[in-house]
């Protein structure tokens, strides 16, 4: 696995007529976490989606290892893992099946034993047969955490990852992100909570633009 650097150069994004942010530049180096802060509606989710390559900017570029993200092939662009508000889980599938499907899409080969062990780590072993519709919001978040634990992607973009998690869940999340940073990974996290991460942490406070 190669280390990855993420750089935003003069990013500008408009929603309709309104500027969400303008000329936003920052760099995240291997082993670093960037915490996005700011009031609701300031554009944290939009920024994460831009960094993931899901949305197009109104100016500026996102660089992954000094290459324009927009120019990369799916294979190389997929160094980025994005976990949004939606859990991408299916109501009809069991916890284990949901995890298996997500990993298949992530091109990660796992055996059933590995998946069950990971579900155990996130405290869902007893609920592995339960279908998505019957899982609580926090339990759904924990499946997402199992996916993070098995992920080989270098850049994690997490949108309010602590939502719906209990204290033990938040502790597990911190531990997972810290392990990722120690391995030289990158995380960009939008959150309202104080996240006591062990690794190097930068903060970006976003403010509403009035003009």
């Amino acid at each position, binding site marked *: 696995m190669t280390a990855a650097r993420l750089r935003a150069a003069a990013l500008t994004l408009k*929603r*309709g*007529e309104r500027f969400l942010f303008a000329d936003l530049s920052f760099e995240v180096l291997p082993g670093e976490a960037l915490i996005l802060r700011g009031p609701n509606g300031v554009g944290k989710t939009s920024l994460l989606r831009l960094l993931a390559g899901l949305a*197009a900017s109104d100016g500026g570029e996102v660089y992954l290892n000094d290459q324009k993200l927009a120019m990369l092939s799916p294979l190389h662009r997929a160094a980025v893992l994005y976990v949004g508000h939606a859990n991408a889980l299916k109501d009809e599938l069991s916890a284990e099946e949901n995890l298996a499907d997500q990993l298949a899409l992530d091109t990660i080969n796992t055996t059933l034993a590995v998946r069950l062990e990971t579900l155990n780590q996130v405290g869902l072993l007893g609920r592995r047969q339960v279908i998505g519709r019957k899982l609580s919001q926090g339990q759904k978040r924990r499946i997402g955490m199992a996916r993070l634990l098995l992920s080989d992607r270098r850049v994690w973009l997490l949108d309010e990852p602590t939502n719906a998690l209990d204290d033990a869940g938040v502790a597990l999340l911190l531990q997972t992100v810290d392990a990722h940073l120690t391995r030289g990974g990158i995380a960009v996290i939008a959150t309202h909570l104080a996240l006591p991460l062990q690794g190097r942490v930068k903060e970006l406070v976003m403010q509403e633009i009035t003009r």
Partner: protein
Amino acid sequence: MSLFKYSAPSSFYPLAGKMVPWFGALASLLCVAGLYLGLFVAPEDFQQGEVYRIIFIHVPTAWMAMFIYLVMAGYAVLSLVYQTRLSSMMIEALAPTGAIFTALALWTGALWGRPTWGTYWAWDARMTSTLILLFLYVGYLALVNAIEDKKRADKAGALLVLVGSVNVPIIYFSVKWWNTLHQGASVSISQGNKMAATMLLAMLIMALACWMYAIAIALCRVRAIILEREKNNAWVRTIKEANV
């Protein structure tokens, strides 16, 4: 680079403003000349009498109906490949004009059909494909109006026009094919190939008039779209202040 200078809405706006009166005047002049030639100078048709004169409206509008969709497809390619905002605005500005020309072609066709074939509507290949073309225009307008985010509406509209334009020849071919299969049910229009020179000239002048009108009105509309989209930009505010 100089060519792309005008692809920025702020520099295209004044240019379009200067061009509108010229195209508008040209359209009016050609229209007067074409209608005079067509209605007063051109001889009466020995089979259809005076009724045939509607072709001076019908044929040019039918041509423009197809031509404008083609132009929109060209802008759609520009919009998707070069991501120029102005191209999407041009598509949006042309679509209503295209739809109106299509509707006019159908309407005048029906008015012409009644006295000559005895029916307002026949499932003739050309009429049917024009009707489908109208559906395509309406589909585009509906999609662009339903999407609130302008950026998304632009791209979605461009993609739809492109998909539609690939399908237009297939649709046209299939309708012709269908028409030959059902020969008995339709009226075949015999093309008068011994059309008088003045008739042809009048028709060509009218087609030019329609073309100039389409350009003038599309430029007017694109100016309105530019103002609406960029109303918070500094250059629009200076225009507003100058006009007050």
